[in-house]
């Protein structure tokens, strides 16, 4: 959990806004440090369903250890439901049409079928503990990262359907939170803006309530400033209110420093 980011977002583990859909996106850089932040943030008191599609459980566990949260304990207590995409995927990819693997990763077998299986998995894991839901507070869904399913053949429309269903369940119905990471590759100025991950990012930006867009410095590579984060609050009740803030950041071993543009300790 990064203290500076908490103050930027005006939230703390004790009091944060309900029903938020937070979209973390990056362009030619790596925004996964924000996922680690949100994971350790929400594990302070909520039940979290984490779809780890690109890294192993031990990776998140090792980083969270440094941030002060034990994922193993959370998983044993039932506070954390972790889907290890990599581990489950091998069975589906290699066995082909036998239906032994988790139905959650059915899209690997047949990409045109969409992410219905994944949604059922998520839905089942949150609903399943309905009786004990009061123990943990509002449920949280985290996905790292959603754009990898585009590389596995799923269409943008199917992914947007998935996020819409999840938003209806988590944010509107259960007043929980959703945090999704998408990664874009193309430069924004290119004409190829019809590319899959761009469309996905635009579609999700339309659905969400808070975006954090991470990209590299426009002036080039710098060792002391790793990039910029643009935080954008999209007003919900009065749709015209959109508030933006821009920060630069530097990722350290046990946290991340956020500072206003030009105020990095390397510069001052």
């Amino acid at each position, binding site marked *: 959990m990064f203290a500076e980011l908490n103050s930027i977002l005006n939230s703390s583990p004790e009091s944060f806004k309900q029903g938020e859909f937070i979209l973390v996106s990056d362009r030619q850089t790596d925004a996964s440090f924000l996922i680690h932040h949100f994971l350790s943030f929400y594990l302070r008191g909520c039940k979290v369903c984490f779809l780890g599609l*690109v890294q192993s459980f*031990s990776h998140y566990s090792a980083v969270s250890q440094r941030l002060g949260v034990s994922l193993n304990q959370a998983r044993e207590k039932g506070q954390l439901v972790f889907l290890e995409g990599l581990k489950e995927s*091998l069975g589906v*990819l*290699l066995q082909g049409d036998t239906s032994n693997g988790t139905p959650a990763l059915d899209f690997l077998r047949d990409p045109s079928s969409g992410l219905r299986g994944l949604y059922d998995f998520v839905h089942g894991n949150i609903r399943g503990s309905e009786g004990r839901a009061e123990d943990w507070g509002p449920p949280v869904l985290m996905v790292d990262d959603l754009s990898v399913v585009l*590389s*596995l053949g799923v269409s943008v429309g199917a992914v947007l359907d998935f996020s819409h269903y999840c938003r209806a369940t988590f944010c509107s119905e259960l007043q929980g939170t959703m945090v999704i990471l998408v990664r874009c590759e193309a430069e924004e100025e290119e004409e190829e803006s019809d590319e899959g991950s761009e469309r996905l990012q635009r579609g999700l930006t339309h659905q969400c309530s808070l975006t954090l867009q991470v990209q590299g410095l426009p002036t080039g590579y710098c*060792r002391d400033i790793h990039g910029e984060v643009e935080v954008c609050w999209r007003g919900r009740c009065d749709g015209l209110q959109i508030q933006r803030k821009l920060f630069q950041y530097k990722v350290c071993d046990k946290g991340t420093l956020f500072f206003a543009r030009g105020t990095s300790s390397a510069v001052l």
Partner: protein
Amino acid sequence: PATTATEVSVGKSTGDRLSCNTTSFQKKSRSKLVSIPGTRPSVQNGQLIVSTGVTSLDYVIGGGLAVGTLLLIEEDRYDSYSRMLLKYFLAEGVVCGHELYVASAQDHPSDIIQELPSPILDDIASPKPVESQTKPCDPEGPDTMSIAWRYQNLPKVQTALASSSRFGHYYDVSKTMDPEICQAARCHGFYLPEHSATVSPMPEAYVALLKNLQEVIHREGFDGSLPQTKSRNVLRIGLHSLGSALWGDDLCCRDNPSHGHALTTLLYGLRALLRSSLSVALVTVPSHLIQNKALMGRITRLCDTAVALESFRGSERETNPLYKDYHGLLNVCQVPHLNCLVCDLPDNKDLAFKLKRKQFTIERLHLPPDLSETVSRVSHGGLAGAAMLGSSGCGSAGNKHLDF
């Protein structure tokens, strides 16, 4: 204790530990550390790393290649230097005693193994890894030592390949590796023409490769499936020119490939395999043929470390005096940070490489000092121009028309 990118559990069973301890003090578990020859824990985050075979490449990607990760090499135009890097990678595996897995659609894996460069060792080593055998051609061994007599009875320095514990070796590319050394290494090959009889719809070649790889990993126990008595080893996987037309893929031929996600699915499956076994992979991809930059971006995201080579051969830069010391440019596109938030980022991203007979060097690209008033830097292309702008105070190297 050091962590690995994989989840294979290694270490002594508790029974062993209890029986040999007379005190309750237990040394901080070095025993949990997998001690495989040719690997060492990284100084940055304790991960188990292996050498890529090129010591300067190891330095540039953060010390070495972490076990359980994938290194992507974007090929240069004629696939000469990327092929060289693949051979260095495999040669390092032979020297360290790792097992090899080579897959290619173009050359037979055994041909690739025979062409590996020969390692440069300190003394003349005998290929037979028997430690008790005295070296016949040891040039400095006196019969009795008169000054250092205390060392008389100690064993001589081991130079046999079997006990090579150095991290990173040097190779002589003008000679090929001794066939006896090659044969000592266990090698599994996947030659595409032998596996697929028909020109099948595209994904099958990749599925066949993934299945074969998983079979080998499982059979040889790299994923922890064999009992603990077998000593641990690392599998080095070299996949040559994935995505090229020879694999049945049309990524390089068309702007809108018909199976755009076949290679990316393979890379995803490969990542799953690597994370769950003691193996490390090097993949070369002819990225200069792939028109779709976003697709190349996705391929890079699915790999852990990514390095792009651009050789000067055949381009106008070959005769450019700025680049006369080098054979090409090297770009580190991506460095992973596994099990930690941040990795050690390099100082400088302008790197160039040169393949010398005994070393593949990677250096920071820099301009030679401007020593003369009349030196004219003829600028070919944008890079030279940008480099000139970056150099400090070279006022005379500019426009000749400005004459004060």
